[in-house]
């Protein structure tokens, strides 16, 4: 079973399906409160993040990034967990705000290079480890 070693960012364990965002998701006018990705030209445009595990390099765009995801969560459409190749302060704000399992700062392998949309993974926010359970 392939494992990716990162640093724990927010505790909790989650198992679920990956949505890969190789160029992150634009915070402002990138994700709707319904959970649907509306960013023009996004590879997963139209998909809903609810219950999925988001994998991205870090944040993108406006300082309102965390707030955009918070509103998604408040409408009941939060993702299940998330992984960031490298933490930045907007991701960390969002991690603490949404309080779902989170892992970041992968040293050996970049999850954005290894994972694909549809992969089933277990993400452990207590240890920082991602295990690939089933490839898409």
């Amino acid at each position, binding site marked *: 079973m392939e494992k990716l070693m990162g640093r724990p960012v927010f505790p909790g364990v989650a198992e679920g399906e990956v949505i890969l965002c190789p160029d992150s998701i634009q915070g402002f006018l990138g994700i709707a409160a319904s959970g649907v990705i509306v960013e023009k030209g996004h590879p997963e445009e139209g998909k809903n993040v609810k219950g999925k595990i988001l994998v991205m390099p870090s944040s993108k765009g406006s300082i309102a990034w965390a707030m955009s995801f918070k509103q998604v969560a408040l409408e009941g459409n939060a993702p299940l967990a998330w992984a960031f190749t490298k933490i930045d302060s907007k991701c*960390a*704000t969002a991690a603490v705000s949404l309080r779902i399992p989170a892992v970041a700062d992968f040293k050996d392998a970049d999850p954005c290079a290894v994972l694909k949309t549809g992969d089933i993974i277990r993400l452990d926010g207590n240890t920082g480890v991602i295990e690939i359970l089933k490839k898409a």
Partner: protein
Amino acid sequence: MLKGAFGQDKKIALMKIIEFAEALGAEELCPVTKATYPTGLKRWTYFTGTDSYDDTYGRFFLGKPLDEGQFDENCLGMNDAEAHADYDWQSVGCSKEFFDRAVEFMDGACSHGSVRGSTCTPYLSGWVPVMGEHFVTTESSNVLFCNSVWGAMGNCGGTESTYWSLICGRTPLWGNHIKENRYATHLFKLECPAETIHDWNLIGHAMGRKMPTNARPVIVGDFPRPHVEHLKQCFSAMATTSSAEICHIVGVTPEAQTLEMALGGHQSEGTFVITQADFDESIDYLCAKGSGPVGYVSLGCPHMTIEEVRTVARYLEGKKVHGGVKLHLWMGLSTLRMAEDSDFAAAIREAGGILVTASCPMNTADGCMCGKREYKTSVVVEGAPGVAFDSAKQAHYLKSELKMPIYYGDVYRCLDAAVAGRWEEK
């Protein structure tokens, strides 16, 4: 503070900051002495109700209504971009109900010691962090400006982390708050026009499009010295197309007096070149094709300097804004005061322009209160057959929101469009 010696609010805020620090992997905190943040009605204020500032903002960020008392006393907190204008709300498209409640909210913030600046460019309004001073802000272009131009220290974060910091006076000692983390990683060579404010707006937009994740750019090249207007315009565009938080400019910014200083002893990870072709690509994205009628023209994103207001006053002299056009000039409260005392405002109003504060087209909104879920944004442009901006940030973001053609060009083209009622393709 963690024991509750300074009250519940500060205790909770500090606990959140510690969680935030742990999420980042930081081991220490640092004291924050400057902050900017919104204080009015926002889309998310619906979730906790809109009875009062203390109730709404408190429950959203701390899980409880705010107690009476001052935010951290050593921190100068000032309000950022809001959804309405401070005075002339009628031309901004929100209802009186919305405006009245928003003002109550703003006053609520003031009761905790918050200051009314109502601007995304607080550095133009006496909010002046010095080199090495730790700040927090909810405005990404302000992060870039204060980090780059003054060597002050701030990270992006979010409204949440900014409020936690404002209340407890601390932020994680991480990222840009540590000198060793601020060195440049990528070179950007300018081989494009770099003279006008509009040029620098495009430079920012183009650089952002090419910016690798987590990059800290340093600009090199042989160009005329940019001023405060050029850099604020550059940074707001850059923050739109990237997550950059610091941008060194050799020979201009204090941490880049030489290229060596900017790189801090490290090797550059890559070089990019910005050319006219990059400009053309940005313009292609930002500006609708062809000519067409416009009903709304907006200047001042980020908020205008008094010099930019003067430029508009001079250009509009003897001209009249077309009857079917609303022309907005956005600025902070202190700049509006100077514009009025200097008679620049009178000249602009004589021509038919409107000076407004606190907000900008993409932030203007209505709704989200009194049980109504609906929150309409960019209300100010409703009904216009076409809109024109001199800001890449507005043009870029509103593409996904608006159906009518969005035109983009320099301040003179925008003013010409306001006078003619029509955008002419060059």
